[in-house]
């Protein structure tokens, strides 16, 4: 096999038993790598109903077929898949930087980790040598300390480390795994799963060659992509960066502010991409093998957080800025820095703190319960103090908030659920779904919970391609088709910032794949892979009891708190009727039943006939749950 390592490593942390299995060419072609392969391996290596924090829940590290080559962005990536402690369904995230290529060079397409180490440990993959090493001296160490100490202990500066911080060890449900200081396997709580296994880090050194099938052809292709990366399709990332979105979304009344109380932020100018670049950005750096550079490294020049340094992107800037009513970039940079140290999802943490601020402002929690922190919107010191508390699970509130907004709302009780902005248990990212309704539909059906990166459904709204204040027929197809692309992007594990550089779309991606692997694949086959991955993820969620229609919904606040701000968005919110129209349309476009269950025919079409029993059982259960309603099953073929 070319480009692929051709090998899957299985590690049991309880028994210490390690074994490898070959990766078959069929498996490679059907699931590509990254999250596609990961979701299939999760399916095949887990029992239904296993708790995310049970030792039997596997956590799977994956490379993509391009990892380890000089393919821009595809060369530097890895992914992690497991059952999510936040949603109880598919958990997945991808990260770039420098870790992924070493994992490939060490010789692995996937590392399936099960069990629980008796003591805090880290996994050391030195090419073919696999060792579970003691990490007790790293207890509660920050991600960066862990990285530095492991490399010092093993005596090689170029060893790459993917680690959790204190939050992961303490089973925070939105804990992240972080490599290279600030590159995060961010969403869906993968860091918590690591913590539940007493696994502090995975360290890797890979020295094997990575060979592609057609070196001259591959060289010309990647040269072309590197050249395109100098052009207009990546300009945003190389200039203002994603924080450019602050003013764009604000002008559209789509900048969720104060926990979705407002849709515009009066302090937007002070946290804009323009302001950030002018006053804080010291240098723009990038990952290994990439021709873009997007990491805007902010350094605080003065004041209480002087010298604080961190990379900042729109999502985290928004969640710890406007969403908390905070207009101080110095505090946001410091907040981001400590979030990376604790190892937490930079989106979820902001939504969690904003949720707590909302409860505090509404008198649902009191100053005694916050241990004296004045958790008012706009209080930057309170944000930072609360992040520390959550990271350490300190105090009544800190401990509860580390569970994420969905579980925290249940624990607090009363009206708290009305302020918990999540889908399926995962906190919403930075788009106001009341004024971006394709996004409302797209986020609601995403298999990892609230997510802008499963189908990019915010894009037609923001770009003005549709009436964003409405959900109507046709949006389902739009979302379905985009999901193919996003699934393939995360299976090849190319960076989403690079998506504009594939001018010829599927033709470019299939060409890229075949030049590297030597495995012929047509655009139709690759689209079908994307469809297969979506159906597989849906089936996993169904198997775990979280995958049907009632879980595809938007948060209470999005439905019951109309936008109060003056302007064209005033009064906007999402209603159940339009959600129903949208879901019917979406399920029909996928060839799923009205309950959102893939039909047997559909599963056979995408080559998942072996798992059709899961859908059949779910359909039976749905029938029994509503015996008086005639079932309308729409077995329409998708692509």
């Amino acid at each position, binding site marked *: 096999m070319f480009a692929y390592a051709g090998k899957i490593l299985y590690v049991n942390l309880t028994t210490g038993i390690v074994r490898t299995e070959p990766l078959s060419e069929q498996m490679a072609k059907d699931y590509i790598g990254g999250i596609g392969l990961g979701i299939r391996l999760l399916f095949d290596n887990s029992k239904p109903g296993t708790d995310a924090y049970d030792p039997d829940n596997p956590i799977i590290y994956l490379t993509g077929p391009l990892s380890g080559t000089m393919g821009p962005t595809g060369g530097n990536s890895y992914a992690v898949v497991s059952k999510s402690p936040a949603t109880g369904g598919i958990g997945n995230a991808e990260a770039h930087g420098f870790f992924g290529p070493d994992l490939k060079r060490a010789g692995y397409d996937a590392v399936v980790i099960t069990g629980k180490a008796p003591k805090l440990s880290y996994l050391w993959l030195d090419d073919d040598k696999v060792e579970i090493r003691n990490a007790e001296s790293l207890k509660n160490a920050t991600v960066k300390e862990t990285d530095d100490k492991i490399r010092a202990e093993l005596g090689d500066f170029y060893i790459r480390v993917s680690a959790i911080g204190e939050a992961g060890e303490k089973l925070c449900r939105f804990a992240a795994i972080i490599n290279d200081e600030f590159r995060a396997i961010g969403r869906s709580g993968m860091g918590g799963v690591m913590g539940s296994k007493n696994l502090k880090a995975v360290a890797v050194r890979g020295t094997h060659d990575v060979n592609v099938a057609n*070196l001259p052809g591959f060289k010309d292709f990647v040269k072309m992509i590197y050249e395109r990366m100098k052009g207009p399709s990546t300009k945003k990332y190389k200039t203002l960066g994603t924080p450019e979105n602050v003013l764009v979304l604000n002008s559209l009344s789509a900048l969720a502010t104060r926990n979705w109380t407002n849709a515009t932020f009066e302090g937007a100018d002070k946290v804009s991409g323009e302001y950030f670049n002018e006053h804080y950005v010291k240098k723009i750096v*990038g990952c290994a093998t*990439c021709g873009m550079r997007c990491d805007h490294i902010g350094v605080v020049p003065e004041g209480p957080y002087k010298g604080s340094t961190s990379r900042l992107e729109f999502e985290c800037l928004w969640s710890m800025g406007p969403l908390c009513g905070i207009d101080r970039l110095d505090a946001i940079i410091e907040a981001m820095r400590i979030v990376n140290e604790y190892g937490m999802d930079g989106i979820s943490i902001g939504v969690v703190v904003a949720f707590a601020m909302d409860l505090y402002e509404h008198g649902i929690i009191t100053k005694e319960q916050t241990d004296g922190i004045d958790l008012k919107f706009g209080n930057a010191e309170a944000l930072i103090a609360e992040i520390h508390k959550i990271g350490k699970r300190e105090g009544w509130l800190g401990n509860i908030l580390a569970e994420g907004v969905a579980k925290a709302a249940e624990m607090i009780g009363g009206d708290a659920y009305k302020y918990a902005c999540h889908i399926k248990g995962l906190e919403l990212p930075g788009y106001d779904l009341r004024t971006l309704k394709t996004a409302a539909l797209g986020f609601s059906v995403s298999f990892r919970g609230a997510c802008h990166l499963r189908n990019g459904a915010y894009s037609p709204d923001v770009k003005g391609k549709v009436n964003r204040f409405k959900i109507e027929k046709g949006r389902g197809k739009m979302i379905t088709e985009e999901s193919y692309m996003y699934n393939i992007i995360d299976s090849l594990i190319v960076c989403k910032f690079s998506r504009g550089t594939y001018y010829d779309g599927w033709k470019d991606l299939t060409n890229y794949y075949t030049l590297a692997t030597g495995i012929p694949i047509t655009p139709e086959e690759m689209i079908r892979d994307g469809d297969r991955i979506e159906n597989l993820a849906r089936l996993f969620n169904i198997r775990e009891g979280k995958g049907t229609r009632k879980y595809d919904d938007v948060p209470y606040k999005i439905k019951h708190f109309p936008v109060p701000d003056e302007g064209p968005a005033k009064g906007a919110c999402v209603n159940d009727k339009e959600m129903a129209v949208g879901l019917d349309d979406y399920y029909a476009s996928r060839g799923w039943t009205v309950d959102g269950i893939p039909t047997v025919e559909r599963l056979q079409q995408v080559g998942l006939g072996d798992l059709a029993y899961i859908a059949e059982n779910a359909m039976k259960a749905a029938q029994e749950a509503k015996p008086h309603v005639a079932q309308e099953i729409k077995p329409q073929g998708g692509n």
Partner: protein
Amino acid sequence: MVRPQDRKFVTADPEKCIGCCVCEYACSMVNEKTFNPTKSRIRAMRLGPLINMAITCRHCEDPACVAACPRNALSQEDNSGIIRVDENACNGCGWCISACQFGAMNMHPDKKIVFTCNSCTDNETKEPQCVQWCPEEALTYVTAETLAQKYRQKAVQNLFQVAEAEAKPK
């Protein structure tokens, strides 16, 4: 005969280099026909997001690596300044690695002998592959004299606070 001060070598501009390692991959692709930074003649070093630098052989005058070799396996080409390794004489002792102050001597993982920058120019561009591929244009193939000129210019610009555009020779 090329004068020593006219010898060209690859150098990274510390303000532009972001540690992206594209140079490593380009080097191993062209010289070793594979993707493997441990077989690259140039290595990127990232001490932190703001501290990056790619380093390779600077083709020193009176090179310490050559002097250090106990087996006379290393020699410097007169014209180019390139350090050549006699693959039969080198036994991989690594004495030259300790002698090089830049860490530009590397041990080849398969051959178990040392290797370093060979200025892999081609006829078309006259520039090594790493320089051609560097996405940040941080790498340049220069002589000591042009490098000195560049920094002298910069120093004077800084002293007089001249904007870069104005400093261009008229």
